[in-house]
């Protein structure tokens, strides 16, 4: 009887080391990539430059770079298709990623702005007072984690790490602000219902001739993607 008990224990231990432990050891951090817009929703347009195409181009380059750096990548939009904002949020939240990158290009009617630009969602007022946060609320912890992710990316891309003075007071309280910073704490429709650390990354402004020139080659996009993948490695360390 005793022999069988000991054998059983040994068997389960063996199972653990042979199957479970290697699985845990090889678990890769998940990064969710979302190329914004798509299908009927073209995003912003400047001449012949269309946002949805650039979003996809950068997402594909980032997927390659992140997989090369050892991350598991979940891509929300892989081709030119329409996905509703609710469906996107559901797909992103279901993936349970360690980090979420939403890719948007931007345009500026004044022509003075250039990329890159980062946006994090401010914390929801009162979210820290409830034990179970209500649906869609951004807790202070989630805000701070997203800000940490944004700062890791800003550092690798050579951007200012301070928040922009245009930021929302809920997130910028206690922070030193800079009028020239391109890191914003503002409510963004793409970040609203996400429950993982998430940032909106804008590599370029379609209205900036120098940005378009800078990313005219695939090599430049892939170099940018490599820097972002290094930033994610810094963040998840």
């Amino acid at each position, binding site marked *: 009887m005793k022999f069988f008990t000991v054998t059983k224990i040994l068997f389960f231990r063996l199972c653990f080391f042979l199957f479970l432990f290697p699985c845990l050891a090889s678990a890769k951090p998940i990064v969710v990539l979302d190329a914004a817009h798509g299908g009927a929703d073209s995003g*912003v347009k400047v001449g012949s430059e269309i946002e949805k195409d650039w979003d996809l181009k950068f997402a594909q380059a980032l997927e390659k770079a992140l997989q090369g750096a050892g991350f598991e990548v979940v891509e929300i939009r892989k081709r030119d298709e329409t996905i509703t904002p609710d469906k996107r949020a559901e797909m992103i939240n279901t993936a349970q990623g360690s980090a979420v990158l939403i890719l948007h290009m931007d345009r500026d009617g*004044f022509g003075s702005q250039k990329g890159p630009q980062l946006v994090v969602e401010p914390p929801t007022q009162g979210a820290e007072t409830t034990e179970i946060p209500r649906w869609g609320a951004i807790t202070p912890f989630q*805000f701070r984690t997203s*800000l940490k992710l944004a700062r890791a990316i800003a550092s690798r891309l050579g951007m200012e790490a301070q928040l922009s003075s*245009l930021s929302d007071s*809920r997130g*910028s309280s*206690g922070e030193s602000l800079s009028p020239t910073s391109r890191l914003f704490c503002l409510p963004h429709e793409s970040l*609203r219902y996400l429950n993982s650390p998430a940032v909106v990354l804008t590599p370029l*402004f379609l209205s900036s001739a120098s940005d378009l020139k800078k990313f005219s080659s695939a090599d430049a996009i892939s170099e940018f993607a490599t820097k972002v993948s290094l930033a994610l490695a810094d963040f998840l360390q």
Partner: protein
Amino acid sequence: MKKNFNSKWFVGLAVATVLCLSILWRHYYSSPKVEKNRLAVHSPLFDPGDKTTSVLLKEVEMETGKMLNITASIHQSKVRANQMQQTVLAYLQGPRSGQVQVPVPEGTALNEFYFTPAGAAVVDLSVGQVKKESVGFYEEALFVRGLIDSLTGNFFEIKQVKVLVEGQDAPTIFGHYALGTSEVNGPAPAAPKGPDL
């Protein structure tokens, strides 16, 4: 006994009638006060003899892209809500050429403005004439922040700015900047608690 019961019944009926009348009076004579506040901004925004006063509007310096405070003139109308509406109109119809311009997408117009007794300035915008693909997140953020700052910076009574699009609650105006969660004015909340990351 029967007489007693009748008199009690009569008193009860009288009390109930008085209560009903007072409820009806409150309903018909008190509610229009709120309505008057809302309607006040529909009347002429100022009298011809009203003096002018200056307000600060948020505008963008073209060279640097920085937000600046620019002085504009409005009339000192007797109703404060009318001054607020004049400020919103001055912001929406601000300069679109020159060194300093308003960050307002062309075609944006004001449908309605009202100020509630609770301190909320409700700005109902019409954006049917604006091409959505011509407005990105940055411009949309400048526009909304500029509108909020132009109102809250000049009128201390405004505790909250609520933006409606075509009379409806909308998630965004042009598709990026999320409305509904950010248009609150007031003292900045304490720094979020949490581990030092």
